[in-house]
């Protein structure tokens, strides 16, 4: 007996009692429907949750220079000056797991506007990518500074909400001038509010400006004060030439060297260093690969020998990543447990009704055997009936679940995500529920004695 004949026979047998078939399959419909709805709503919530946690900085890696030490005295993290803006550019170009990155130069100084002043928690010299790396909300006013501003060391800045409140009260700061360490900056925009970070520090107490401006105009100490070499060394690097255009405030300690001296005794060229590089991985799962890629790249760029310790530290926000992954895992397991229970209940319902059906159709089974059905034919017929019931129930459940989650999306504004995996799994699971719970009744039917079955009243 061929399988499509069997399927047709099974469908016809089910069609003889459509009401009961409907009620039988209701357990599966509800089970699969619940699974699909939960998977879709769960996937949506999980995606939203991941996004939220990502905006808190779970995907962000912080690269800081390593420690410098002198005579056994270590100066602590961030004291070497080996991290450069070029490192940041190279990371972006060569690490596929990295989405974006921004170098940061820090300063701490007084901010003055009119007769008010304030010392912000953060004065960051950076690039426009910073806003993307930090997942900063959209600007409240104005617009961000550009890459061109970075190259030109333009005196422009963005202010955080707290600063606006402290310095400008009710005025709009855009277009106004503020002074930072006696350098006048034009305010081009106001950052959106971000609130406190995980450590409780106010993230809105911030000034963002091009890193070149902060480095060469505000702190002004980069090359001349922190390093003895190459004070006036003409390097070919476009960024480093800025130190000639905007020399530091401190006078040179040594007399200018002549061209002959310089040629005879070349000085190693020092690059501008940055205090840290912020890097955003593409996703939470990409944090570890990004870490490995960055470490390998920086070791190569900094000419570290094998075995030599890194002259930088890469840190991820492990705690947050852990929280994120454990939340997701827990949610998935919960959904799975609920799904299992409802499917087992549905399966038992199917088995119950199939057993009733076998008893009720004993004469039919006897008759089919009398006209030549083998035990295997009967087994297959009832098994196919159970599987068809479950598959139809599964299909209806998918529609019901999908419709339900769409209603939730429309009326409750919850995020949902259609999950093709869940749908495929639902089809597979409903077919196997039919197989498993349909087998016993089908086996019982196939073992009937035709004489007894024909005589059954």
């Amino acid at each position, binding site marked *: *007996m061929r399988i499509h004949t069997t399927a047709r026979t099974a469908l016809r047998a089910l069609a003889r*009692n459509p009401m009961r078939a409907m009620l039988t399959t209701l357990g599966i419909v509800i089970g699969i429907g619940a699974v699909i709805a939960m998977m879709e709503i769960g996937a949506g919530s999980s995606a939203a949750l991941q996004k939220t946690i990502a905006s808190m900085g779970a995907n962000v890696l912080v690269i800081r220079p390593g420690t410098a030490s002198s005579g056994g005295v270590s100066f602590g993290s961030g004291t070497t000056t080996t991290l450069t803006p070029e490192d940041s550019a190279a990371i972006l170009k060569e690490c596929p797991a990295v989405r974006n990155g921004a170098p940061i130069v820090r300063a701490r100084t007084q901010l003055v506007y009119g007769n008010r002043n304030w010392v912000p928690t953060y004065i960051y010299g950076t690039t426009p990518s910073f806003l993307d790396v930090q997942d900063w909300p959209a600007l409240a006013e104005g617009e961000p500074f550009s890459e061109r501003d970075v190259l030109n060391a333009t005196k422009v800045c963005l202010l955080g909400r707290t600063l606006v409140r402290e310095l400008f009260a009710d005025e709009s700061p855009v277009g106004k001038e503020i002074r930072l360490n006696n350098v006048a900056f034009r305010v081009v925009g106001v950052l959106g509010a971000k609130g406190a970070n995980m450590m409780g520090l106010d993230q809105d107490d911030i000034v963002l400006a091009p890193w070149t401006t902060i480095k060469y105009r505000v702190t002004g100490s980069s090359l001349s004060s922190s390093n003895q070499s190459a004070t006036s060394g003409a390097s070919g690097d476009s960024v480093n030439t800025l130190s000639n255009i905007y020399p530091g405030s401190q006078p040179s300690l040594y007399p200018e060297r002549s061209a002959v001296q310089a040629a005879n005794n070349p000085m190693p060229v020092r690059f501008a260093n940055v205090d840290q590089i912020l890097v955003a991985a593409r996703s939470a799962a990409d944090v570890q690969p990004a870490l490995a890629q960055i470490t390998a790249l920086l070791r190569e760029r900094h000419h570290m020998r094998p075995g030599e310790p890194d002259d930088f530290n890469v840190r991820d926000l492990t705690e947050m990543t852990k929280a994120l992954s454990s939340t997701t895992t827990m949610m998935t397991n919960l959904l799975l447990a609920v799904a299992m229970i409802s499917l087992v209940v549905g399966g038992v319902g199917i088995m119950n009704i199939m057993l009733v059906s076998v008893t009720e159709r004993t004469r*039919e089974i006897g008759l089919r055997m009398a006209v*030549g059905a*083998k*035990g295997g034919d009967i087994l297959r017929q009832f098994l196919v009936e159970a599987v068809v019931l479950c598959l139809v129930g599964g299909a209806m459940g998918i529609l019901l679940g999908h419709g339900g989650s769409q209603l939730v999306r429309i009326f409750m504004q919850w995020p949902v995500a259609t999950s093709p995996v869940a749908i495929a799994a639902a089809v597979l699971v409903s077919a196997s529920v039919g197989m498993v719970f349909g087998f016993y009744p089908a086996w019982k039917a196939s073992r009937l004695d035709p004489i007894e079955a*024909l005589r059954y009243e």
Partner: protein
Amino acid sequence: MGMEFIELRDIRKSYVMGDMTVPVLKGVSLTIASGEMVALMGSSGSGKSTLMNILGCLDRPTSGECWLDGEEVSRLSNDQRAFVRNHKLGFVFQSFNLLPRTSALDNVAMPLSYTDEGLSEREARQRAAEMLSRFGLGDRLHHEPSQLSGGQQQRVAIARALINRPPLLFADEPTGNLDSKTSEEVLRMFEQLNAQEGITIIMVTHDLGVARHAQRTIHVSDGLIVDNAVTAPPTTGPGGGT
């Protein structure tokens, strides 16, 4: 002696009930030739139903041989016997045994789904429709059993029994649920099938009036054949010779 169409040799059947062994058939030997129409008579409990089940490959004898069309069927496996039932035997029951809420057409086509001929759905239904037309039900193809009269239902059952063109037809009290007029019709139908197509027919009955239509009546009593007499000459149909 040439092999008869059906030959039973010393068939014994007993049932075990608790500690007791109840013998039902106590050594039945019997031959039926191809093309015969035989009535199997006996009171209830005489063993005639058991005998028919053994002949119909539904049951196995405790001992003895049962040859059907040159094949010893009592030792075949269940699946092989299902094959024999499908290809060589047709059954007509007292209570028709039609599938409820299923059209006459699908009822008749049902045995075809267990053959290995590989008929398509369309061929099967066409064959079933032809068979039903032969029995005068060409206009009732899509009626369900509950919409048919008793006589019509029994004709559907006969059509179903013959759909695989078996050489042997069993009828277990075929007229038990019919009034006398339709009983006559059904019996005449059997006679026609027997005469025109040479189908061997075995009727189980306790009604002498039914048995009279057969060429031979076998009386079973207490597990033994007590009378095996030819009651009437073979009937002749329009197309058959003597």
